[in-house]
């Protein structure tokens, strides 16, 4: 099964960079992970030939900073009014549009890391930073065998 891992966000917008940090950490752990801004069309443009999609993004749901949320399904049922990263037009819209255009991957998992600060700057809230490490380790553990196998195939 072809899997794609995408960390979304913007490192210059504080906690909004959480998804990017997870992707960077996964790469250090030897797992193929990409970084995207999280714009609807960036996301959509790369989905149709994937069977399994793992997305990591910063979210604002009102939970304590650093909380890791998980949503699954195709499309995953994201809670209404959840604010994903700093983009008004992002993940939730990509799923809706993907559904209309019939180009959603078969399996989708969204990991949302609850952020706190979304201003200008590179500093990330300590709880969010801790969560990025925990999530990277969790994804690495959960998907390691599949993903490393695919990485080898891709490299070949």
């Amino acid at each position, binding site marked *: 099964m072809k899997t794609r891992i995408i960390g979304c966000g913007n490192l210059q917008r504080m906690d909004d960079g959480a998804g990017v940090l997870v992707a960077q950490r996964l790469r250090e752990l030897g797992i193929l992970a990409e970084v995207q*801004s999280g714009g609807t069309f960036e996301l959509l443009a790369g989905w149709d030939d994937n069977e399994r999609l793992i997305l990591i993004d910063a979210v604002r749901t009102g939970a304590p900073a650093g909380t890791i949320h998980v949503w699954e399904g195709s499309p995953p049922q994201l809670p209404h009014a959840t604010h994903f990263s700093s983009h*008004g*037009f992002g993940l939730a819209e990509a799923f809706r*549009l993907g559904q209309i*255009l019939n180009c959603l991957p078969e399996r989708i998992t969204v990991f949302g890391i609850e952020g706190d600060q979304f201003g200008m700057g590179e500093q990330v809230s300590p709880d969010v930073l801790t969560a990025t490490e925990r999530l990277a380790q969790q994804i690495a553990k959960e998907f390691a065998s599949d993903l490393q196998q695919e990485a080898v195939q891709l490299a070949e």
Partner: protein
Amino acid sequence: MSRAARTIRVDTLARVEGEGAMHINLVGERVADVKLRIYEPPRFFEAFLRGRHFSEVADITARICGICPIAYQMSAIHAVERALGLRIDPAVRLLRRLFYCGEWIESHALHVYMLHAPDFLGYQDAIAMAKDHPEVAQRALRLKKIGNHLVALMGGREIHPISAAVGGFYKVPRPEQLRTLVEDLKRAVDASIETVKFAAGLEFPDFEQDYEFVALRHPDEYPFNEGRLVSNRGLDIDAAEYEDHFTELHVKHANALHSVVRGRGSYLVGPMARFNLNSDKLTPQAKQVAADVKLNPPVRNPFRSIIVRAVELVFACEEALRIIEQYEPPSQPRVDAPNRAGVGQAITEAPRGILYHRYAIDEKGLIVTAKIVPPTSQNQKRIEDDLREYAARLVAWPLDEATWKCEQAIRNYDPCISCATHFLKLTVSREER
């Protein structure tokens, strides 16, 4: 008509790239005040760049915008190269044009279909539009993908590309890699021509303004990275003279500065300015397609900029094909860039219009000062001027419709307001005289 105080308020203006607010105050039938407030990261980046080595500038400035990172890289690299007195291999120059084609394709496809078209077709957003017109959304996505592939191939990855460098490219593509794009690009030319027809079929308000159009002009090329800065009012300058002719005014209501032509006022940059000043440099097919839909320069109706963007899509796809077909890797992808003190300015044509960078570099190669004037900040005053005129025609309209029309007028400029996030608050208030 009613003289009662009315307020139109949209807390989030979607489908613009950026963060800011717009306030329009109507008194009776008169537009009393228009204020566009912008919170602009380039200012933050200018400070952030000081003390960094010039080799980092391209990667840092690419982060200003997720939509147009290549524009930031190109202006930054050219300005630094000019400060250092570097000469660039013509093959590298061509590759940079190719890189820019990718960004234009991505950005224009996104704006024409997903951000602007819903206004004309009467939908709140692209998702609602896609339900009724899936073929339109599919075409947009196809074009966007091709742009993405080109950018990813050239930049090493799809967003925040990393291959462009002062002196050239860290890594250049092999001819066979670029050739894999040819069939897709041919299809993209067809899809772009369809896009022109689609855009030309939309309905446009009867609204023309007397603009000063400002764009690069090159003797042989439709402009990307090179040329003199010209206008329809006699401007004809080198990038180094930019600050002699343009100045930024502090306005109380905006964090950003208002850019004006000294002694004249607001001006317009972007597709309409490029087309009006350079339509003779388009490819024959792009010219023909424009003529077929009766798009003739000068275009003065900003709502018709959607057709101009579509014509530029045709051009960008054809230009990419032309470059790929003649491509031979540069003998030296990157020339050495030794530390040297100097000042350099550059202007390149971002999808939204000219992007000016100036860097002063010390003898250790560290940035002493940086100045970045993004296209949206240059259009900002012009957007306000348009709204002042346009809102006056809408005073009798129901508030929600008037607000929508004003948002659409803002989107004519494809504003990339913060180049990072996505909130623009629009308020229109109405009072008795």
